[in-house]
């Protein structure tokens, strides 16, 4: 992996104060990972394990009842310590995001081209006449004829809207693109197109991508490193080869088993019994303990730390030796 990490997430924890009963939901706890320039990091895990919350915490886009602690260093600057106003300059300029179900992220009463231009002019990057040309270029880059920039989102198909969102994300040439499940809600053909587009853009522009997904096939195809999350914590973190061929955490092992293998078709898929922990009543020990097939007594009482199991491979399980 190349030199110095672009983004260093350190001990990121996020709590939500539930207004109804004043309880606290711990959505993220002590999440740390690195993003190096030009690499693709996959964030995987079940629904509700904190993948999206992690992205939104890094960008500080969470609602007012969220409490974030920890540090996120971007090129050495701690984003968590910035004022809201200076944070605004980093958003999109350096850190762009393609939202989950991005087709709804376009304003229905604004022309698509205008919305892309909005991102450029907001940061005062280009004078208005050049911004227009840039919008055309961006649309062409994602395979949309530039004349269609003057159309409204409802005149686009779902896949086109997704690609328009990616064009918008590239508007300010960011260093990191956060893609939150960019392919869910799209059919398989369009999924493949969008992934190919992301790959292509990454190679051309050399940006880093943080890809949130629960599709392990997408991870295997796209990512250089993988962060496996469970119940708001990092379960395992390593190179994509290590994760797929040498998974150390029991959750990762089970996750891989529950994914269909084309080489060895089976009648039924393996699944992990039980459900992820409820975030308002987190067990004191390992969060995976109730569902774990290899649990020991210690797992009930003590949360396992991340231990180094390879040069760039970390996993959090009591069974692992340092």
């Amino acid at each position, binding site marked *: 992996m190349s030199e110095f990490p672009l983004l260093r997430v350190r001990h990121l924890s996020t709590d939500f104060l539930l207004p109804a009963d004043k309880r606290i939901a711990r959505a993220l706890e002590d999440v740390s990972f690195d993003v190096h320039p030009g690499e693709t990091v996959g964030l995987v895990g079940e629904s509700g394990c904190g993948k999206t919350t992690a992205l939104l915490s890094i960008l500080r886009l969470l609602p007012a009842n969220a409490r974030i602690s920890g540090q996120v260093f971007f090129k050495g600057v701690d984003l968590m310590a910035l004022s809201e106003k200076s944070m*605004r300059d980093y958003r999109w300029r350096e850190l762009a995001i393609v939202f989950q179900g991005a087709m709804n992220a376009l304003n229905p009463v604004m022309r698509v081209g205008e919305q892309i231009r909005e991102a450029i002019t907001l*940061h005062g990057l280009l004078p208005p006449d050049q911004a227009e040309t840039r919008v055309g270029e961006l649309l062409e880059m994602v395979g949309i004829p530039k004349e269609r920039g003057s159309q409204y989102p409802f005149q686009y198909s779902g896949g086109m809207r997704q690609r328009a969102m990616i064009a918008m994300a590239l508007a300010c040439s960011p260093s990191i693109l956060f893609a939150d499940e960019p392919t869910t809600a799209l059919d398989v053909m369009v999924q493949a197109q969008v992934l190919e587009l992301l790959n292509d853009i990454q190679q051309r522009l050399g940006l880093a991508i943080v890809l949130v997904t629960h599709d392990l096939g997408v991870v295997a195809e796209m990512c250089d490193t993988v962060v496996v999350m469970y119940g708001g914590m990092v379960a395992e973190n390593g190179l994509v080869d290590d994760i797929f061929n040498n998974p150390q955490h029991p959750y990762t092992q089970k996750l891989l088993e529950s994914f269909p293998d084309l080489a060895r078709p089976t009648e039924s898929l393996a699944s992990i019994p039980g459900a992820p922990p409820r975030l308002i009543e987190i067990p004191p020990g390992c969060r995976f303990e109730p569902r774990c097939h290899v649990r020991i007594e210690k797992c009930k009482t003590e949360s396992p730390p991340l231990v180094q199991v390879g040069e760039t491979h970390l996993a959090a399980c009591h069974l692992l030796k340092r």
Partner: protein
Amino acid sequence: MSESWLLFKRNLSDFWRVFRRNRMGMTGAVLVLVAVLVAVFAPLLSPYDPATVIRDEAGRGLTFAPPSVHTPLGTDDAGRDVWTQLVYGARISLMVGFLAGFIAMFVGSLLGILAGYFGGWIDNLLMRITDVLLVIPDLPLMLVLVATLRQMELKVSPLAVLILVIGLLYWTSTARLVRSQVLSIKERQFVARARAIGAGHIHIIRKHILPQIMPLIVANTVLILSTAILIESGLAFLGLGDPTQPSWGTMLNFAFDRNAISNGAWWFYLPPGLAIVWVSLGCVLLGNVLEEMLNPRLTGHHLEGEARVQPAPLESAGQASGEAAHV
């Protein structure tokens, strides 16, 4: 709602084509338009000045004279032409109503957006003020305020006092309406996206929230106008208008004070009353239709009504049975 607003914004002529076919809306538009034209061209519609006293050959003022060729709606207790007062009164009634209505709309929309968008203590504060104003009955409160302000002998015209009091007290329903709409819009994903591209609050409100609630504001404005005109008439009837610039309400007040009814002078009290009905009916019709057109949720479901099914031609039915026989 937003898609029809798009149509409205993009293609006014298309909107007009649909609107023109709506009989209720057209009636309302014509009623309002006629009133506005009368107000604008008042001097052309009457040979007299509103203060002119009509006199007979002997030079005496013609009081309570019934309608005639020279005075189409007769004269009042002081011998002034009622028709002239009616057309000039339209200016005052419409001006006060429209200005007060627009102020109310502006204040209501602004506070509604602030409360809905920022939430938290701002929302709490603004909504509690709204609650207080909603609980106090409008008319008595305005009566007291106008009367008190009048007594303070401020250096503003009585009409301005009237406009400000109505405008600054009548925004509550608008504020609540706008707030609820903003609450739902700000949860939409394109607002989160706007935040993610680094947009500030003012940018988001101006570019992403306001266009979405415009249809609501437009339709509501027309409805508020009619209420503002009614309130003005009510206050003026109770003697809080400007006697030197009589509106329709002031005319009714004069007619009531000077026993027009017991004198049988129906031409004195009926025309201003009917004029008020005319304008507010027009506004209500127009407002309801606009609301309906700009908010598709209020119109019938698009699957409503019977689908037209073409009856199958007889010969094809015969063919079908023939094929069935083959099988």
